[in-house]
């Protein structure tokens, strides 16, 4: 009997569309109307809000800070996460499962608690600063508040567990026999990494970088708590404009710019990856 399995997809499609697309549409639609303050919008369709965003250095600077901190956080996640993922993926003992479980559990911890953990560690009387001051590496405490470094650390802390899990699944697909073969033929560890693991994992790494980057672009909590009212990213700006100024149109405009920026950056990255593949710099 022929079963119409696609019918099962209709309920999730309706729910998904209502919750995501429809609600976003209503909000984004507001970006094309004049902002009259106190949540009120004009009657005529205008593009003033977009013109203001794209011609105002203040907003463009916030866009740049958002892209920069997200990119740095994604890169830091890769740098810190790759060795951990590699180690777990190549581990033969049961410890690999325990470590993986630990990472999965760490991703369950709410971001607010994670950020407050960072605040405690990096406070003036905290472990990090007291150690650094005691051994003379710092002459004054380092603060995670009110600077981009702190925001990048917070974002990376938010995405690291997720990044390790993604990288783990990528590395597992690379046969270990390739590494052994290269080593038998005289390649040292660095060469094995550079010529085998890196090219083979690059498509997956790119996907992981994009996913982490996208998460960071929309992250509010880390940027709001660690930015200390000095570092403004687009999500922080949206909250300030919607909650304090109650300017829904401008808030929607910033949200739309954020969404479009993320889509453009992702498409650009995929295009670049394809060019690399075409130039045989990446193994397909």
């Amino acid at each position, binding site marked *: 009997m022929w079963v119409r399995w696609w019918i099962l997809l209709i309920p999730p499609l309706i729910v998904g569309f209502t919750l995501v697309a429809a609600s976003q549409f209503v909000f984004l639609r507001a970006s094309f109307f004049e902002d009259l303050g106190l949540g009120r919008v004009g009657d005529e369709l205008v593009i003033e809000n977009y013109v203001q965003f794209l011609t105002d250095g203040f907003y463009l600077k916030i866009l740049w800070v958002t892209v920069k901190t997200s990119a740095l956080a994604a890169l830091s996640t890769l740098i810190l996460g790759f060795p951990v993922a590699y180690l777990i993926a190549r581990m033969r003992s049961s410890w690999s499962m325990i470590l993986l479980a630990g990472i999965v559990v760490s991703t369950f911890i709410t971001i607010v608690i994670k950020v407050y953990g960072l605040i405690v560690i990096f406070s003036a009387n905290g472990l990090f600063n007291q150690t650094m001051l005691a051994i003379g590496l710092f002459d004054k405490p380092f603060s995670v508040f009110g*600077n981009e470094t702190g925001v990048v650390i917070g974002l990376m802390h938010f995405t690291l567990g997720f990044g390790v899990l993604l990288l783990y699944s990528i590395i597992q697909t690379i046969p270990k026999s390739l590494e052994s073969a290269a080593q038998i033929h005289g390649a040292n560890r660095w060469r094995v990494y550079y010529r085998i693991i890196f090219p083979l994992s690059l498509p997956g790494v790119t996907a992981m970088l994009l996913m982490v980057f996208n998460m960071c672009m929309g992250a509010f909590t880390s940027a709001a708590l660690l930015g200390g009212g000095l570092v403004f990213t687009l999500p922080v700006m949206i909250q300030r404009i919607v909650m304090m100024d109650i300017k829904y149109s401008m808030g929607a405009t910033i949200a739309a710019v954020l969404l479009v920026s993320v889509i453009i950056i992702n498409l650009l990255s995929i295009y670049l990856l394809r060019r690399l593949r075409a130039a045989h710099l990446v193994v397909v």
Partner: protein
Amino acid sequence: MFKSVKNAMAGIFITLFLSSSALAAGQFDGVTLLVGTWGGLWKDNQVENIVSKFEAEGGKVEFVTGSPAANFAKIVAARGQAPFDVVEILAAQVKDYHELDVLHPLDLSLIPNTEFLSESRYNEWLVGSWETQEVICYHKDKFAEEGIPVPTTYRDLVHPKLAGRIQFPDINSGGGLTGLAGVTFAEGGDETNIEPGLNLVKEMNVLKFWARGGETMAQFESGDIIASVVHAGWCLRTKKLAGQNVTTVHPRINDELVGVASEGWFGVMKNSKNAEAAQWYINQFISADYQLKMAIKTGLVPVNQSVFEAMAEDPLVAEMIVLDPEKVANQLRVDYSKVIIPDWTDQWNRAIAQ
């Protein structure tokens, strides 16, 4: 005979049951009052002292917690159909509430405790609920250890040894607009010209701009800051609850004004179906008993003037809060009818963002 005694007993029981039910019936039977207010200690105090009395009258209270800005955003989002009956309003928001026309006119005969308030703190739309005194809260020991002079003005916070070790309220926070107003007036600006204030804030080299006053307590404890611009209540709690040796300075604004006062209000929502209960709630909030408990516990200044003397008996309150009516009258009070808040926040964002 036995049957008639049984019937008589049953009659007595029924009569007793009905009369006890009538006695237990309160004036707010079946009423669920929605209160828009802050969470944490602020809400807990209300639960402990007001909600219990309301429940004794047969009603039930549900809280919609959030900052006044967040609660106002909820009203706007709900197109005026507020998700509460009674709400706390900051002085800076009064203009917006009137503009949206979401307030219910008050029947002051239902709020008899207004007789203990100064005339400027109640009208046909709003009743004052508290005042705060915005101060410089500093760590006495750290200042003494490092030889930092005790500040008397906001400008004194521009000091090399204080760089990266002070907090200031974010414009988004409850104390943000008042904090900015304080530095603005102290630097010669006013409601229409906040640039002098913004320049001073930039000069201060602030570690972070606090979003919630409780951050002051945490940051003093962690050693990240040794001074904060905050309302006196948070300084009092930092000493009481966190054991930090802090005290307050009421900054000199100009030749006439010393210190900055901020006002809180209560309003009943136009769409409320429980306006009478809401006004009862306000009356309880401004009662001498509640205002005194609130003042001692949180360090806020009561609007009910009958409790000032009793407040002064608490040594910490007496040390940190100005209670002399003449001095209170000499504190800066911002005329928010002249303030265009989106302009202030826009200028702030542009000046402060790194």
